[in-house]
């Protein structure tokens, strides 16, 4: 009862990512006014939209105190198979002997296939985590290798390139004047995920199993099924990300998305979601994603090498988690 007032440290913890983002924007703007031109803003958002989408899914996973390291590899498999089917299924036919050329040229089908592959990957990994009792870190570290290998095997290491305009619209198109389509998707899915996490029973349960799995079980929650579901969700976004990346680059490559897990996890963690589960939000993840985009873009505009950018982002991840620990230790008292 001695601690009834709003705790300023806790409040600061909640808004730290936003404050940091604003400060960063102001610094880059003062260094280079071009930074806030509408074109550059859309550019930044487009750059972060794919990792941002996957980070939305990763938020669900990390809220349960889990992790998924396989997202970049899963993205590559999804992108390749979806591109292949769209182009008549040359590699598919080589592997299975089945002719699926009739399915080519259908964007909706191609996107569905990418997403389905992602969901399947999530189901496999989620099942291994919940049924075999192998830690998520290990299962998805395995997945990182398995899915990358599968991608390389599927296309024999080569790319599948050159699509028509209908396909490329989803990665390259613009609506409402200057707004890139991937940015629209990013925003829509962020809103949807936010609503699910904040306003549905499912969302409440995700927070609960992350905050205290034993208490969740004793409260009658199906912890196993809930845990499985978050890996399916992040798989969905990895698949969707594969489709959009393929469309954006006009090419699917087996090495696409390498290293995405770092950016994705960083977006979530910098956005204030606790790696220990139970605390965080999709809005934070959006801020975290944008923050990484701003940092990259701002450094580029100021002629800082991309190598240094990696160093900076690595340091910020560690600081974000250190800050989270600090908040947590304050809470315990």
């Amino acid at each position: 009862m001695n601690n009834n007032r709003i705790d300023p440290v806790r409040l600061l913890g909640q808004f730290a990512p936003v404050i940091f983002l604003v400060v960063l924007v102001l610094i880059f703007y003062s260094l280079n006014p071009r930074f806030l031109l509408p074109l550059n803003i859309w550019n930044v958002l487009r750059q972060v939209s794919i990792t941002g989408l996957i980070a939305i899914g990763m938020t669900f996973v990390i809220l349960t105190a889990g992790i998924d390291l396989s997202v970049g590899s899963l993205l590559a498999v999804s992108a390749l198979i979806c591109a292949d089917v769209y182009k008549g299924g040359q590699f598919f036919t080589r592997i299975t002997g089945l002719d699926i050329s009739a399915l080519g040229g259908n964007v909706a089908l191609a996107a569905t296939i990418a997403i389905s592959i992602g969901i399947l990957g999530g189901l496999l990994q989620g099942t291994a985590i919940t049924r075999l009792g192998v830690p998520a870190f290990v299962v998805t570290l395995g997945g990182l290798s398995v899915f990358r290998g599968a991608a390389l095997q599927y296309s024999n290491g080569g790319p599948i390139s050159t699509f028509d305009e209908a396909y490329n619209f989803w990665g390259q198109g613009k609506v409402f004047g200057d707004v890139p389509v991937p940015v629209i998707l990013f925003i829509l899915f962020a809103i949807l995920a936010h609503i699910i996490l904040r306003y549905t029973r499912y969302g409440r349960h995700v927070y609960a199993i992350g905050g205290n799995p034993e208490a969740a079980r004793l409260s009658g929650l199906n912890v196993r099924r809930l845990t499985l579901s978050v890996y399916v969700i992040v798989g969905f976004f990895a698949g969707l990300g594969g489709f959009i990346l393929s469309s954006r680059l006009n090419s699917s490559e087996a090495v696409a998305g390498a290293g995405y897990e770092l950016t994705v996890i960083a977006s979530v963690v910098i956005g204030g979601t606790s790696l220990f589960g139970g605390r965080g939000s999709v809005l934070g993840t959006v801020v975290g994603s944008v923050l990484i985009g701003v940092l990259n873009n701002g450094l580029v505009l100021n002629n800082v090498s991309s190598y240094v950018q990696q160093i900076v982002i690595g340091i910020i991840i560690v600081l974000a988690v250190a800050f989270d620990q600090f908040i947590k230790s304050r809470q315990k008292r």
Partner: protein
Amino acid sequence: MSQSNGTPMLAMRGISKSFPGVKALSDVTFTVGRGEIHGLLGENGAGKSTLMKILSGVYSPDAGDILYDGAAVTIASPHHAQQMGIVTIYQEFTLVPSLTIAENVFIGREPGMAGGAFMSWGKLREQTRAILQSLNIDIDPMTPVSALSVAEQQMVEIARALSMQSKLIVMDEPTSALSESEVQQLLGICRDLKAKGISIIFITHHLEEVIHLCDSLTVLRDGQNAGGAAVEDITIDGIIQMMVGRSASDLFKRTTAYATDEVVMRVNGLTTAKNINHLTATALHDVSFEVRRGEILGIAGLVGAGRTEIARAVFGADKFIGGTVEFMGQPVTIHSPLDAIQLGIGLVPEDRKQQALFLSLATRENLTITALGKMVRWLNFVRFDAERALVERYRQALNIRMFSPEQTIGNLSGGNQQKVVIARWLAMEPKLLIVDEPTRGIDVAAKAEVHQLLDELASRGIAIVMISSELPEIIAMSDRVITIREGRLTGQFTRAEITEERLMGAMALAMVTA
């Protein structure tokens, strides 16, 4: 070794310590002589652990001073306490299972060679062997600790204490996990240590051990000194008197019994396997009982007797290998907590923080977690108006004191947290509520409120199983009591038959029939 000058080994004077919402120790005095085995007794929550944590440097006292080995000291940290020769052996061991006995004994102080750059395995082994021999233990020092029994692991803890040249060893319920012959061996070792001039503080619930082993004893009650004596001047009955003689005015008094003849749950021959993941858990053997509508059934037993295991098995949280459960006259199978909840069973678990609370969530979210399914519309969207109304209802009904329903649950006092956990189950309208240590870690006033609440629930026809290690609570609240010891039922008492002495006897000694 024993210096025969008059100063005691340890004198703690006027020790007080408060935690948010609870006064844990109030002006406690505690003195241990040189080469003495001193029993520290008291019910759970009496303040023994807090006092020992102050002695071992985990907590610092709010007031009071400590004289150790004739000099006033401030014990800054557990490490500092060890350097001074005060070593505590906790109930849960601090050994590293994958390392050998020798490595564990000398962990952090490994004998070196080449100027300390390398660890000397030879010296490590020989020094450990010498210590083990002095304790008459014949085990290879290179055995990994994971291969040892609980009793042997305890020996390793004692060996480690010896290797640190300790002068004062605190043993926190050292016999609770040991078999009869292992207990005898441990008591023998304690006498050997005493002969070497080492003082021992021996915390236990087993009163026979105190009489057989200790030289003198101190009893704490509600954070205060309740008495002390030389062992030759006191009987077991006298000790029990000191432990339980609290002022009855603090407790809620039940006036009416609401028990009916309608059996809500009948458990027959409940048997569980030893749980390999929880070495401290006790296996249950053939436990049978029933609980009726409107009845409060007390389950009494010492720590580790298997009380909590009964609750967890019946609730579907742990598997059981034998026995049947009937609920409302129907045979049922309960494989998970969800099964139990769907039947109308709720569990308020023993460890609020670990097993009940979602510390990162708001009070509102903690309260409605079980009933949320009734407060959703299409697509499982939460009806926040219904949710807030529910919270408001229980806030008033249970007098839950909070600043706002959006307040993080961790910021509520222990008593209010417990009310939230109880409210969580009431929202489900249960037929049976199992409460495990319902008033642990909450203050006296909140205790009385929780007791009143349980009485009210019984009056509404809810069957209640109440597990408690506090006998006054069991006696004040129960319509009927069963006692268990080492996983077996040892007694059954109706309200008229219940006395503190009888219960204590059935819990701590052999089989008793009333």
